[in-house]
């Protein structure tokens, strides 16, 4: 069941973004930024958590989960330290993804030549 929900959720998010891209003048950069903000907004009210429970990795893979993970890291520490915790914990959960992406981008740029 989770597989079907993962398919539906991830597919729907991608489809909505493609419809926005095709019918407006927004670029992929605009749409990804918009989706991160939407993910953060949904997570503040605990909605995205429920989606993750039902859809599993289907909800973790789209860029909306980046906002969700930022909120989670920040709010976990903020519940102990108060508003200051927002600053301490914000990258707690996304650190793995960002650091691996940085290292991969750097190493691959050293090895490969750009293709045009």
């Amino acid at each position: 069941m989770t597989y079907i929900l993962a398919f539906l959720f991830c597919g729907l998010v991608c489809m909505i973004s493609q419809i926005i891209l095709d019918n407006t003048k927004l670029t992929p950069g605009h749409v990804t930024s918009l989706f991160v903000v939407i993910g953060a907004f949904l997570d503040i009210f605990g909605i995205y958590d429920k989606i993750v429970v039902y859809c599993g990795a289907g909800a973790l893979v789209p860029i909306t989960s980046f906002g969700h993970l930022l909120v989670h890291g920040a709010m976990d520490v903020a519940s102990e330290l108060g508003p200051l915790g927002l600053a301490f914990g914000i990258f707690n959960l996304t650190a793995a993804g960002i650091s691996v992406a940085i290292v991969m981008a750097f190493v691959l740029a050293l090895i490969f030549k750009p293709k045009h």
Partner: protein
Amino acid sequence: MNKEEYQKIVKKNTPKENWIKNALITFLVGGLIGMGSELLLNIYATWLHMPRKESGVLVILTLIVLSSILTALGVFDFLVQKFKSALIIPITGFAHSMTSATLEYKNEGLVLGIGANIFKLAGTVILYGVVAVYFFGLIRLLVMGG
């Protein structure tokens, strides 16, 4: 033939961007990516005995590594032309934007090329994510009381 008729014929014969077909393709491919990563999550959880939360992070890392390598090999751009935002909206697009930026500006040097441009596109995602979290987080802490 006057100008209006000509315009009509031009309008009739220019290939329309078929957004319904694009939407269907992205729905299918995006859905397959979601389903595949759920499968991968279950594989990590059962074979490596990781908790579900950590195997979720591992799935994201796997996708990042895969898409970075595909970008460096030049395959990813070809796939994006076919499957469009099905590959841009998942975390693969984030890794793709960083690797393609570093490859493109490689010639300008290690610091001014790779270093200065690595976050050229991914920076917007981080910027608006962080600003949104501070904004929403303060609202939740101060107005809703945590």
